[in-house]
């Protein structure tokens, strides 16, 4: 893989990230009820996924390392989900 092609790929990812940033800021100007939160978090997740996959080279890492990354996401989600379970049903 030539340096140029690799670099181009990274720059493309960056452009996507900036686009998502613009989207998320724009979205905050509309009131969509619960949709705002979903949009905001959803876009953040997408950005994080791009950073993880391309910038952090997850696409080239061993399955073990990928499991570590995915596992982390699962853990933090579990914590947040179970805490909300309490908060939402009080």
């Amino acid at each position, binding site marked *: 893989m030539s340096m140029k092609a690799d670099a181009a790929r990274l720059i493309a990812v960056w452009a996507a990230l900036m686009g998502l940033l613009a989207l998320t800021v724009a979205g905050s100007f509309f009131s969509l009820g619960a949709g705002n939160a979903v949009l905001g978090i959803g876009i953040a997740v997408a950005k994080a996924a791009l950073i993880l996959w391309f910038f952090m080279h997850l696409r080239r890492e061993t399955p073990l390392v990928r499991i570590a990354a995915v596992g982390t996401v699962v*853990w933090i989600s*579990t*914590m947040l989900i*179970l*805490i909300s379970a*309490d*908060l*939402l*049903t009080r």
Partner: protein
Amino acid sequence: MTVSRSAPDDRSIEMGAGISEKTVAETAEERISYLRAGHTLRSWFFTTDHKRIALLYLVSVTFFFFIGGAAAALMRADLLTPEGDLLSNEGYNRAFTLHGVIMVWFFLIPSIPNVFGNFLLPLMIGARDLAFPRLNLISWYVYMVGGLFTVFILITGGVDTGWTFYTPLSSMFANGNVVLAATAIFVVGFSSIMTGLNFIVTVHTLRAPGMTWGRLPLFVWSHYATSIILVLATPVLTISLVLIAAERLFGIGIFDPALGGDPLLYQHLFWFYSHPAVYIMVLPALGVTSELVAAAARKPVFGYWFVAASSIAIALVGFLVWGHHMFVSGQSMYASAVFSFLSLVVAVPSGIKVYNWTATLYKGHISLDPPFLFAMGFIGLFVVGGLTGLILAMLAVDVHVHDTYFVVAHFHYIMVGGTVSAFFGALHYWWPKITGRRYSIVWGSLSAVFIFLGFNLTFFPQFLLGYLGMPRRYHVYDPGFQVLHVLSSAGATILGVAYLLPFAYLFYSLRNGEPAGPNPWGATGLEWTVASPPPKHNFETIPVVTRPPYDYEIEQESDAG
């Protein structure tokens, strides 16, 4: 050149040709035991040898065990009488807080992993050291810094919030050194994370050739599971402590009820760590017990894969149950019901382990040497603790016994009856390996028996006290409870003396004990194939593993007793 060496135990390990990485000159030096390789203070305090670091930890955790024990002694003495006459109310609060903080973070959590895990993990997997030896040393220094803070707190009057630091008491109203205590625990948390990280990477990357996951000793499995918890749970404690400190120091708080802060948020964050933390305390003990039971019965552990998987299951499911500490604190009923159910589920893997140990012992040639007595004691006490845990997991029952001595008895059965017994069992089992000396079997057995008896006398009455309604963290109580308290304190005295016994005879053995060979118990495991004490770099040549774990020769049925 193929060297085939049969070790004086049941298991022969084939040494692969050409695997030796060392030069000829180094090989002679290697045979010097790790204890003799360097006598200077520098060689001990700047060591990166996992075995020496394990000993550094052994000394430190023992020191803190005594301080925590002294706090307990004060409490039990005060509780002899229904009036609060020995300590003031504030003093008693400080005593139980200190007892909890020191025992949990400076003894129980590091005890088995940082002493025996550090010492044995590389040996058991056929490696020369952990993956990050310098990180290992740093973790000890970090631990000591945290410990120093704690000693400082002792001197400057202590903390009175309970080891749980509930807000808003801890963040807004408590007297005493809450910030110092939070800092001490904050610091020691990093030691935990470093250890967990080191263990996980070691097990993934440094196993000897042929040491597949299915040949790992169960001790390694349980430490791997513990390490997952160490890495993922501890940071949540860290942030909880940071938030308390921020509120106390800068008034920047998110728990202040006047602003709308939710005290339950703190409890969620605290217990998200602290429930898995109790599994950090018990999983290594479960791993030790698996090793001891196999060696006691001279049989492979029954259902190896079930036991291995149960360690991982406990680690994972253990993260889902923290709400059972909050049944009466205002948590929603529906969330409580979910946590209650999940808490019942988490008992299943522990139960599997107990069944499998029992099946291992069945038709085994059971030896009653001291380590194995400790292991038997562990199983009995762990079962009691576990069953009472199930009782507490049931929402309807917990509502009545929450914050009573029933809970206190439950967790002491697991942590003291369990983990501390396993710690002593490990100490007695691997002492010959670590020091190269044997100790008096008679004295070892006596201390195991006295610890068991003293423990039960101390803590069984506490179940009754709790059931009858005696609240925890109180030192003034209804005189009707006094008989049970006296029994408990009497037991504590016996227990205290029994804990001191090993000091005497183990120290004695250092100079006067018989030299131990590589495998005094005739057990399986790579650690028993090297000299006692092991050479500095563990193995002359990295072994190639070809046999299953617990490869005892099973004798004919007709021989079974």
